């Protein structure tokens, strides 16, 4: 799960795809994950960070992670 290099992101959760002109708004947790992806963090590292930082059930988080991954792929924001 690697974000395309040219994707522009902001701390507020705004995401811009310069190749398609699409833009998206991410909620605070999604924005946090996106920024970590943008910094090149591995998915396992990001997952660990989120689980350590927030009171969330690991199974539930894994399910949400997969869903989020699918959304990013659908939005054409991930490297193939």
């Amino acid at each position, binding site marked *: 799960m690697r974000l395309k290099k*040219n994707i*522009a992101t902001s701390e507020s959760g705004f995401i*811009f795809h*310069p*190749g*398609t*002109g699409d833009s998206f708004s991410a909620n605070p947790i999604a924005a946090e994950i996106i920024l970590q992806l943008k910094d090149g963090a591995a998915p396992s590292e990001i997952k660990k960070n989120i689980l350590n930082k927030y009171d969330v059930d690991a199974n539930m988080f894994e399910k949400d992670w997969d869903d989020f991954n699918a959304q990013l792929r659908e939005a054409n924001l991930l490297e193939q």
Partner: protein
Amino acid sequence: MQQDNQPIVIAVTGLNAIDSPGPGVSVIRALRDGLPNVRIIGLAYETLEPGIYLHDLVDKTYQVPYPSAGSDALLSRLQYIHQKENLRLIIPNFDAELYNFIKLGPVLKAMGIQTFLPAQEQLDARDKMNLYQFGLKYNLSVPKDRIIYSSDALYGCAEAMGYPLVVKGKFYDAIIAHTLEQAQKAFYKLSAKWGLPIIVQQFITGTEINIAVLGDGKGNATSIVPIRKLYITDKGKAWAGITLEDETLISLAKTFVKATNWKGGCELEIMRTADGRPYIMEINPRFPAWIYLTAGAGQNQPAALAKMALGEEVQPYTDYAVGKMFIRYAWDHITDVSEFQQISGFGETAP
């Protein structure tokens, strides 16, 4: 480019900044941004073209005869205007007037007036009636089409291309037809409005992208700026758009300019399919109405065109701001009836 402190006098058409806007006002804004000392002469067909009344953009406006009046009538009017204004350059912005301006090019040049337009053959080659052959010739992706003169031919079109089909008027308008009945209705509607033939085109689905291109006439693209329309009006016009970063689109535009030696501004209308293939849907032989965005993004195409037309060497642009947006707006401009009376009665605004 400039010999002394006299302004460069540039005449511009397409002052109809209305819901289906001509590019003139946008072109003028870009010229004023990019050239230090210009005098802008508006050339208008209708007396209520908004640009006529925008005096911070247009210094003076003259009415000109409709393209259907022919090139002699246009020349006669331009001679009168030139006598008063000493024009250096004319930038026409309507498809329909290009034939006359291209035809008059050598005469205008002899008068000291430059233009920067494609040759008539280039103009004809990219015409929507010839687009499919054009694509085949230059190995560009274009939708399949058939030129038809009778609604009976719609059966064959549907068999060859399937539904939906795009039924297009020879000058303007397009209707998507999902059934034979819809296609027939579209055929009669468009042929009544624009005449025959009718173009029936393969329907391509995808993301609509537009590219503003400036060719130097020697096979080089001086500027290429692709955008995606973010808001499209019910007339299919962009109300907002954003510049894109996409090497495939830049490369496509370069191929087009190199293949045709295109001279002047143009707009490539592209449909990019889900698998990323860019189809050329139409090639407009003049600047689009959103051309001011090219100035905003760092490639001022109208100013570059003016410089090249006046003999200046302009190096091709290599960079532009990605994510630069335009958002069009409506603005009620207040003027006095005396101004309307002046242009209506005398065919020109007050000095």
